[in-house]
C-alpha cells in the first residue's frame, strides 16, 4: 500500500553535493576482494565500510551516519588499498574491482592517530564539564587510539561564543569537529536548511544565515541535529537545575507527565538495548526523586483524539452536508511542535488546515492547572508542571505565548529523555532494577491508543480506532485493533478506510472512503505539502505529520545514537506496550469520560474545550531579513 510516488527507492534522503560511494546498478553482481589477508565475495558497488561491517570488521567513523548521505571529510575511516599511494576513505570508496584492503596497517594506524590528534588540538573544552562525557565519539576514539598527550598543542581559550538564544538547542562551535552531520541532517533529512559550512579553510565553521543566533533564523527546534552530532557541539537547553529547584522547594507541588516515547527509550541511557519500555520503573524513580505526582501523557493523548477526531468529523460534515467551500480539508495533525513551526515558516498559507487541538503536553498543562488543581484543592500558582518528552521542540512549545489558557504558563518545563536520565543518575538511582509502580490519580489510566502516539502512524491509528467506532458503532475491522497500514517506517504512507452501515446520525458518511496519509520527517512533510499545493490531495481527509523521522521515538530529545534499526526497536516496544493494555481505544478511557462529564461538560470542541484544549497558529513566513 505504500509503494507510491513519494517514496524514494534509492535512498531515504535527498542528497547534498558530495555523494559518492554508492555506485548504482547492483543487479546481482559480486566482486572477490581481500580484507586483511582474508578473501571475501561482496556485492558489486557497496562501499568498503559496508563490506567490512558485513564481515564484522571494525572501522572507526566520525562523519559517516547511516541516516545521511556520505561525505568522506573526517578521514578517520581510511584504509590502505594495495597499489594505491594514498589512503582511501572506506565510507565513500565503492568496490567495483578485485582489490586488497588493509584496515590495520602501519600507515592506517598512524594516519588515524594523526587525524585524531589534529581534531583534538582544535577542540576546546574538557570532557568532565561536557554534556557528552561518556557518550562522545571523539572521546571514544581518543581512548581507543591511545591519545595520551596533546601532540599538536591545545586550544586554551574558547574561540566562539556559545549560542544560547534558542529555547531548545544550544550550539557550542568550540567543540565542533566539522563533520557536517548537522548540515546534512538539517538540509537533506529535514529539508529545513538552517546550518551550513561558512568561510573557507581553517576559518570554516558551521553556522546559520548571516551567523545569526538560532532563535532568529528558521529553526524548527526538531533537535535531529543534536541526535547526530558526534560531540558536545550541539545539545538541548538544560532545564534540570530549575526542575530540581522546584522539587527541593517544599512550597511547590511538582507534577510531571511522561510521554510513551521516553519510556520506551530511557533504558538505553542505562545500558539496555533499545526496545525495552520502562514505564513502571520510571514511575518509581520519579516518585523517589521527589515529584509530587506522576501522570501519564497518554491520558491527554486520548483527549486529543476526542477533540481532534470530533473536529475532523465536524469538518467532514461541513464539507459533505453543508457543502461549505471554505472548509479546510485535508486536516493536518497538530501535536508535533517541530512540524507546527515548519508549516508556520514554510507553508503559512496552509496553517488553517491544522487541527486547532493542542498537543497532549499542552492539553495536560491546561488541565493540570485548572481541573486537577480544583480536584486536588491546590492553588494553581503553587503547581510546577513538568513534562518528560522525547522532544526538544516541546521546550519551545511550552514557552509559546498562546500556551497560557490556564491563566498561568501551562507547562513550566519540558525535559528531554536525556535530561531526565541524567537527573535520575544524579539522584543515585539505577532505573532498570527498580520495582514497577503505577501512575497517580486522577489521570492514572490511559488507553493503548494514546500510547501509540509515540510511533509514526500512531496518531492516525488511534484516531481511526475511535472515529470508526463512533461513526459505525463497530470496532475497526483489523485483527486485534492493529491497523497495520498505519505502521512502518516508510516516509509517506497512504491508505483508506471504507465507512458503511454507519449510525443514522452519521448518514452523510455512508459509503465514504476515509482517505488518510502519514508522513514523518519534515523532508517528507515537504513532499506532502508540495503535493497539497499542486492540488493533488483534494480527496485526502486527514494527514498525520510528525517532524522527526520515525515519529516521536526518533525525537530530538531521545538517547544518542540513533539509527533506523534503533527507531524500529523503540516503535516495536511502543506497539507491544499497547497490546498489553486492557483499554485500547481513547473513547473507552474512563478518565476521559469523567473529565467530559465533570468538567468539559459541553463535550469535545465545546466552549471550555476550545478555551483550554485548542490553540491558534502564527503565519510566520520564511523571511529572515
Amino acid at each position, binding site marked *: 500500500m505504500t509503494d507510491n510516488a513519494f517514496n524514494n527507492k534509492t535512498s531515504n534522503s535527498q542528497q547534498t553535493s558530495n555523494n559518492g560511494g554508492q555506485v548504482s546498478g547492483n543487479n546481482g553482481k559480486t566482486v572477490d576482494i581481500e580484507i586483511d589477508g582474508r578473501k571475501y565475495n561482496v556485492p558489486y558497488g557497496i562501499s568498503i565500510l559496508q563490506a567490512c561491517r558485513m564481515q564484522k570488521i571494525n572501522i572507526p567513523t566520525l562523519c559517516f551516519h547511516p541516516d545521511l548521505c556520505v561525505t568522506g571529510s573526517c578521514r578517520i575511516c581510511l584504509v590502505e588499498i594495495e597499489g594505491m599511494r594514498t589512503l582511501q576513505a572506506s565510507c565513500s570508496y565503492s568496490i567495483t574491482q578485485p582489490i586488497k584492503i588493509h584496515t590495520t596497517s602501519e600507515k592506517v594506524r598512524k594516519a588515524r592517530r594523526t587525524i585524531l590528534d589534529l581534531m583534538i588540538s582544535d577542540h576546546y573544552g574538557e570532557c568532565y564539564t561536557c554534556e557528552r562525557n561518556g557518550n562522545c565519539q571523539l572521546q571514544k576514539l581518543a581512548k581507543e587510539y591511545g591519545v595520551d598527550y596533546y601532540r599538536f598543542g591545545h586550544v586554551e581559550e574558547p574561540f566562539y561564543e556559545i549560542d544560547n538564544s534558542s529555547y531548545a538547542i544550544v550550539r557550542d562551535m568550540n567543540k565542533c569537529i566539522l563533520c557536517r552531520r548537522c548540515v546534512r541532517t538539517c538540509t537533506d533529512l529535514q529539508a529545513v536548511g538552517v546550518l551550513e559550512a561558512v568561510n573557507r579553510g581553517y576559518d570554516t565553521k558551521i553556522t546559520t*544565515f*548571516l551567523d545569526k543566533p538560532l532563535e532568529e*533564523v528558521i529553526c524548527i527546534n526538531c533537535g535531529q541535529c543534536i541526535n547526530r552530532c558526534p560531540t558536545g557541539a550541539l545539545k538541548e537547553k538544560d532545564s534540570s537545575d530549575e526542575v530540581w529547584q522546584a522539587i527541593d522547594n517544599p512550597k511547590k507541588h511538582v507534577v510531571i507527565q511522561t510521554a510513551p516515547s521516553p519510556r520506551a527509550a530511557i533504558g538505553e541511557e542505562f545500558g539496555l538495548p533499545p526496545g525495552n519500555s520502562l514505564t513502571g520503573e520510571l514511575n518509581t524513580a520519579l516518585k523517589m526523586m521527589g515529584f509530587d505526582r506522576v501522570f501519564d501523557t497518554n491520558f491527554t493523548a486520548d483527549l486529543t483524539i476526542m477533540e481532534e477526531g470530533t473536529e475532523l468529523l465536524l469538518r467532514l460534515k461541513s464539507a459533505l452536508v453543508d457543502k461549505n467551500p471554505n472548509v479546510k480539508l485535508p486536516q493536518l495533525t497538530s501535536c508535533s511542535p517541530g512540524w507546527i513551526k515548519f508549516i508556520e515558516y514554510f507553508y503559512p498559507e496552509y496553517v488553517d488546515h491544522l487541527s486547532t487541538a493542542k498537543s497532549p503536553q499542552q492539553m495536560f498543562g491546561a488541565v493540570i492547572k485548572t481541573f486537577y488543581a480544583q480536584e486536588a484543592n491546590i492553588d494553581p500558582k503553587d503547581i510546577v508542571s513538568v513534562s518528560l518528552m522525547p522532544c526538544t521542540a516541546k521546550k519551545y512549545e511550552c514557552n509559546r505565548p498562546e500556551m497560557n489558557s490556564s491563566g498561568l504558563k501551562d507547562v513550566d518545563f519540558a525535559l528531554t529523555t536525556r535530561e531526565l536520565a541524567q537527573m535520575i543518575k544524579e539522584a543515585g538511582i539505577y532505573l532498570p532494577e527498580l520495582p514497577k509502580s503505577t501512575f497517580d490519580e486522577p489521570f492514572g489510566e490511559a488507553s493503548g491508543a494514546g500510547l501509540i502516539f509515540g510511533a509514526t502512524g500512531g496518531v492516525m491509528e488511534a484516531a481511526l480506532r475511535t472515529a470508526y467506532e463512533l461513526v459505525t458503532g463497530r470496532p475497526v475491522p483489523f485483527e486485534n485493533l492493529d491497523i497495520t497500514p498505519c505502521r512502518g517506517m516508510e516516509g509517506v504512507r497512504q491508505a483508506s478506510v471504507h465507512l458503511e452501515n454507519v449510525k443514522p446520525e452519521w448518514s452523510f458518511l455512508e459509503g465514504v472512503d476515509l482517505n488518510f496519509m502519514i508522513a514523518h520527517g519534515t523532508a517528507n512533510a515537504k513532499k506532502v505539502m508540495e503535493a497539497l499545493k499542486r492540488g493533488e490531495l483534494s480527496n485526502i481527509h486527514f494527514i498525520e505529520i510528525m517532524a522527526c523521522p520515525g515519529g516521536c521515538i526518533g525525537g530530538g530529545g531521545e538517547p544518542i545514537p540513533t539509527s533506523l534499526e534503533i527507531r524500529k526497536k523503540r516503535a516495536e516496544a511502543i506497539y507491544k506496550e499497547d497490546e498489553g493494555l486492557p483499554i485500547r481505544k481513547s473513547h473507552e478511557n474512563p478518565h476521559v469520560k469523567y473529565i467530559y462529564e465533570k468538567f468539559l461538560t459541553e463535550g469535545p470542541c465545546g466552549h471550555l474545550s476550545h478555551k483550554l484544549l485548542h490553540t491558534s497558529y502564527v503565519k510566520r513566513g520564511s523571511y529572515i531579513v
Partner: protein
Amino acid sequence: MLVSEVNNLTNYISMLVEKYGNGRQALIPVLQEIQNRYGHISDVAQQEIARLLDIHPVEVYGVTTFYHFFNAKQRAKYNIRLCKTISCDLANKDGIARTLERELGIKFGEITSDERFSLEYVSCVGMCDQGPAMLVNNEVYAKLTPRKVVEILDELKVR
C-alpha cells in the same frame, strides 16, 4: 533598505535568474553580476536569490563566504588587490604595500573614509614574470614600482 531599493533589487535578481536559469547552477553567475553592479552582496540580496533559486538562504551565505571575490560589505569604488605570493614577494611587493598604505592613508584590510579605495592582499594572480602586480577591480597592473603606483593612484583619483 528602502522598499523601493528592495523592489529594484528583486527585479534585477529576477531578470538575472531568467537569464541564467533557475537552478542551483545559476548561483555563481548571478552572484558575480550582483557583486559587479552593487559592489557587494547584501543580506537582502542573498535571501532573495535563495528564494528565487529555491534553495536555503544559508546555502547562498555558504557560497558567498567561500569565494574570495564576493563581499558582504560594500566595497570601495576601486578595490586594490596586491599579490602577496612568492614571485611578487621576491620582487619586493612589501615596498609597493608600504607605498599604497602611505599614499592612501589606510592599512591593508581597510577602506578610505570617502569609500573610494580599499586595500587587500590576494593570492597569485598569474603575473609572476612581471611582478609586483596588483588588480584594481578587474584591471591588472604589473611591473609596479613605488613611483608607478603613485601615478596609477593619481589617475584613479580623478577618474
